[in-house]
């Protein structure tokens, strides 16, 4: 039977060692703040009112008109219509414009028939407002999809505005960097600890005490959850105070801050356990951590990336954590957040069970 007394004793020794070594605290608390200050300062310039978006409506049907209306009726974007005869990309170039949206010919028909139809967003990757336009267009599309399902039964809800707030880069950066912190501190630490303890035979020594593997792992998870919550408060406070980030706080944030560390502690443990040496564990750990660090929406929204990279992002567990935080903190879309959370719970359960199973105190 697991004993809380032993978990707490192990937690106490671990936290003491962690806080005394300073390095861990720097990377888990100070480093993400430095990143916020850095990225926040770099991208805090371009926020002069709504972003101008050139829209070419090749369809003209009711759904497309509604789409344009929604895109225009919020404080983030304003729409300038472009004549059907023009080539939109040429037009954007000629007008030195960065943001454009193309609504295809059969939009209304396909939309009403429930067939997949895409609007195309033209953007300049170097422009900081591009991700905001992406997010706004995505939000409009998902709102229309939701309403598309109900329009048959409830006419008149079409005029509802999408969240009338302009998203800024910092709004995406804060949940992204919270995800970054929830990923990196447990991953790097556990990969190192588990391979190192295996090498120095510290695990073997612990196996000679009544402490169990599950108790040991639990105390690590508790610490990284606490650390995640501390870094959540630090980052949101700094983001709001210094850069005026607009963030929603909901109870739904808490399960993400618990499940995230649970997943990455287990994953780090797994990597350390299956690796032959401390060095190879570090390599494998980095191979897993780095793509997640950059491609999961940590430093910029995933929608800004090319499609094939977005596909990559969708297989990275951190994507669902950050998307979940984005849905709660930026879009107040708890339904999507719940989906992300459920997925994370399943992944974490699998990772935890494997970590405990492959975690060997002793040798055969």
């Amino acid at each position, binding site marked *: 039977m697991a004993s809380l007394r032993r978990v707490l*004793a*192990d937690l106490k*020794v671990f936290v003491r*060692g962690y806080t005394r*070594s300073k390095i861990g605290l720097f990377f888990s608390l100070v480093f993400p703040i430095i990143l916020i200050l850095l990225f926040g300062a770099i991208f805090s310039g371009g926020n002069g009112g709504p972003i101008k978006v050139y829209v070419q409506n090749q369809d003209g049907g009711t759904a497309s008109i509604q789409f344009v209306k929604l895109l225009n009726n919020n404080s983030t974007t304003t729409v300038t219509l472009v004549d059907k005869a023009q080539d939109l990309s040429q037009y954007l170039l000629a007008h030195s414009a960065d943001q454009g949206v193309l609504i295809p010919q059969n939009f209304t028909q396909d939309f009403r028939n429930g067939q997949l139809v895409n609007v195309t967003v033209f953007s300049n990757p170097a422009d900081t407002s591009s991700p905001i336009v992406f997010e706004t267009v995505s939000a409009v599309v998902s709102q229309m999809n939701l309403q598309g399902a109900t329009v048959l039964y409830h006419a008149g809800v079409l005029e509802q505005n999408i969240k009338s707030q302009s998203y800024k880069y910092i709004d995406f950066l804060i949940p992204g960097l919270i995800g970054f912190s929830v990923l990196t501190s447990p991953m790097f630490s556990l990969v190192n600890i588990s391979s190192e303890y295996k090498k120095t035979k*510290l695990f073997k020594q612990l196996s*000679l*005490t*009544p402490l169990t593997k599950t108790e040991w792992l639990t105390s690590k998870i508790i610490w990284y959850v606490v650390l995640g919550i501390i870094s959540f408060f630090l980052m949101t406070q700094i983001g709001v105070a210094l850069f005026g980030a607009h963030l929603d706080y909901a109870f739904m944030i808490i399960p993400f801050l618990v499940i995230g560390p649970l997943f990455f502690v287990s994953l780090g443990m797994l990597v350390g356990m299956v690796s032959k040496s401390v060095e190879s564990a570090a390599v494998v750990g980095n191979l897993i951590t780095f793509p997640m660090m950059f491609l999961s929406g940590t430093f910029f929204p995933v929608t800004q990336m090319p499609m094939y990279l977005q596909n990559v992002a969708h297989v990275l567990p951190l994507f669902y954590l950050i998307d979940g935080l984005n849905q709660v903190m930026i879009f107040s879309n708890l339904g999507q957040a719940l989906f992300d959370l459920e997925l994370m719970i399943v992944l974490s359960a699998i990772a935890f069970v494997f970590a405990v199973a492959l975690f060997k105190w002793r*040798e055969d």
Partner: protein
Amino acid sequence: MSAIEVSTLEKSYGQLKAVDGISFSVLKGEVFSLLGPNGAGKTTTIEILEGLRQRDGGQISVLGADPWKKGYQLHRKLGIIPQGFTFFPKATPREAVTYYSTLFGVKNDPDAILRKVILDDASSIYFENLSGGQKQKLGLALALVNNPELLFLDEPTTGLDPQARRNMWDVIRGLEKEGHTIMLTTHYLEEAEVLSDRVAIMNHGRIITDGTPAEIIEKHGSGERLEVRGDEKLADYVREKTGFDVTYHNGFVSVRLRDKRDAVIALSSIDQSGLPWKDLKTRHDSLEDIFVKLVGGSIEEGGTIKKPSDKSEPIARANN
């Protein structure tokens, strides 16, 4: 009453037979040593007894239980220092003892335990800053936390300087006086001789001989010997001239004496050789002599076997 019973124990790693059918028993209240060079199979044996490794064959009983199957329960009654004991670098000895006490669910005065292993002067120093000897003492302190019936010490003094080693011996002797049953492994002959009630000499996975140090010397010893410092040539000369059992080891020529007359003959032969020699003495076999005889070499500081021909001391130095 036996604390440990081992019968035809076997363990292989691939092709290598690490432990090759050994049998012995350790009585309650005694200090029992497994003595042998690196790779003899000592640690494998002790780890099997501690429940850290699974055996391939044979029967073992530790305090009446099978350590592999009943390890979790058994560990509450055992105190163990694994080879190369280590701990969390940023924890102090006092914190370590408190941690272990909580894990075992026992109430302890950490300072009293640290005093017992003579580590109370370093109770607040981070583990990473302790000396090798202090680290090993902490290992011993942690092994004592649960007031164990049986202590396993796997090479408790390896890598320590002579002073720290003697210091550790004092601590172990103190534990013996308190009535603890102790099984230790070592490649230091002196350690085995000084600490143990009984010794088993192990090599290539087998126990070559066992008993009290005195019994082993009696059984395998060759009586009195005459020794001088000299080189191998001198040994060859004396052997040829006298027909005696003459050995050369580590800069010493050693002649086995059957009676007093042999001493006179050997000495005159040494003198006649015209070769340089010095430091005349006679002595009885020590455990080390028996070890060299049985294993075919002496053990170096690091635990490896040094064959007699590996390194011969130049006679010039012997003459200085």
